[in-house]
């Protein structure tokens, strides 16, 4: 029986473990290690931030999410030693493996933007999403500035989603005429890919949201309530919501296996850590030039689970990860758009906002816990 060690029990680690455990129940002994015993449905943070969901609805005990044969260990990993095939836990316990899957995700790097930590609201953690809702529900009038802060951040569409949902929220509350909303982007358009950006820009125009482009956030002056760009511009705000800069997990820095931002170099198709054939990385933890999202972690984890299964069975077949992503962009007004892309097809048209995509997004809130985390699809 082969020992499979999974460091990190987020989307990637959980989907990988469940999928492989089901496919090869007699061939593998799988252990998942994570410092937290709670798993969060991270796309739900958006809905918490506008008061449409809650901590209870988007959290589950991690141990309940695994197939019975999988062991879950709550512990913090201190160091990963790839050459000696060892994972060292805080406290000194050492774990060995035949295959290692690293799914350590990303962490917020507040220090990258001076003033961010103390003056910017966001919803990239559950605590911060709850704080943001408290700000939004008590907001009466003024300037709301939303946009891209850190340039490496999880989920590229999240800033767009919150700006549309906030517009919706203030309209429902009857105070939209007392609120100015601006959307910041360091690019020449609100969103990177050109065709979906066109749809987003048209919707912003319809909803009186002003795009402010070529605005690369340099720092935030909390005393004067101004956000200042590297291009030399500044904007006053009463409520500032920006994507925080992200970096790799501390354990990746401690282990010396990442690049300068802590992302692990991997093969873009097979996800093995470069230089190793028994170690894989999935999800946010990799250095791949694609968004850091749950859907990508999902497809990567499935590819790695299937390829280890083929390896164990002694067959030559291998699956290839092609950078596939499918993202539903929530836009308020019971509408959502969507975008499909992979490594080779990046300029797909954005999908026209529709109710069916909005319903698909809501359906995800439920099927996530069963079909997706279970590794069935």
């Amino acid at each position, binding site marked *: 029986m082969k020992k499979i060690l999974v460091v990190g029990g987020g989307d990637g680690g959980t989907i990988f473990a469940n999928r492989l455990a089901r496919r090869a129940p007699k061939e593998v002994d799988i252990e998942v290690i994570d410092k937290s015993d709670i798993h969060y449905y991270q796309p739900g943070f958006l809905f918490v931030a506008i008061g449409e969901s809650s901590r209870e609805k988007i959290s589950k005990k991690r141990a309940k999410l695994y197939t019975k044969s999988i062991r879950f260990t709550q512990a913090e990993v201190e160091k990963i030693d790839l050459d000696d095939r060892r994972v060292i836990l805080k406290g000194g316990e050492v774990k060995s493996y035949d295959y290692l899957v690293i799914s350590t995700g990303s962490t917020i790097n507040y220090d990258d933007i001076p003033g961010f930590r103390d003056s910017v609201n966001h919803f990239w953690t559950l605590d911060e999403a709850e704080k943001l809702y408290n700000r939004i529900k008590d907001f009466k009038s003024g300037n709301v500035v939303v946009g891209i802060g850190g*340039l490496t951040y999880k989920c590229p569409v999240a800033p767009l989603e919150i700006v549309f949902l906030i517009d919706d929220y203030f309209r429902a509350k009857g105070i939209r005429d007392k609120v100015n909303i601006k959307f910041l982007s360091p*690019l*020449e358009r609100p969103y990177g890919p050109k065709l979906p950006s066109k749809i987003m820009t048209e919707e912003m125009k319809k909803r009186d949201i002003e795009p402010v*482009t*070529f605005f690369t956030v340099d720092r935030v002056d909390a005393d004067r309530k101004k956000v200042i760009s*590297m291009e*030399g511009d500044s904007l006053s705000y009463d409520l500032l919501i920006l994507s925080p800069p992200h970096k790799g997990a501390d354990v990746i820095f401690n282990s010396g296996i990442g690049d300068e931002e802590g992302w692990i170099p991997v093969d873009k198709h097979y996800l093995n850590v470069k230089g190793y054939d028994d170690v894989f990385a999935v999800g946010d933890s990799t250095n791949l*030039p694609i968004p850091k999202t749950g859907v990508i972690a999902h497809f990567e984890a499935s590819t790695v689970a299937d390829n280890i299964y083929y390896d164990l069975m002694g067959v030559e077949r291998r699956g290839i990860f092609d950078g596939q992503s499918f993202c539903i962009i929530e836009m308020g007004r019971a509408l959502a758009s969507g975008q499909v892309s992979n490594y080779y097809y*990046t300029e797909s048209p954005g999908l026209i906002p529709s109710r069916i995509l909005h319903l698909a997004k809501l359906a995800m809130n439920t099927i996530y816990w069963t079909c997706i985390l279970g590794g069935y699809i």
Partner: protein
Amino acid sequence: MSEIKPSITVDARGLSCPGPLTSLIKAYRKANVGDVIEILATDPGFKPDIEAWAKRTGNEIISIVDEGGVIRALIRVTKK
């Protein structure tokens, strides 16, 4: 003419839009006035993007050359 030596090189080959421009902006965040950033990219949309960025930000494009499918641009940081 003497070759201009870049102080920072950004390899954005293989990245699709907006990857190359985002990589450039990341380098720009860390650069000082006077630095020359060299950026290599293969995304065909990069040329108009970088021209628009330089025009808006007031930084100087020293050159943009297409070298067999690889766009090589040299940017002098003149404004921060």
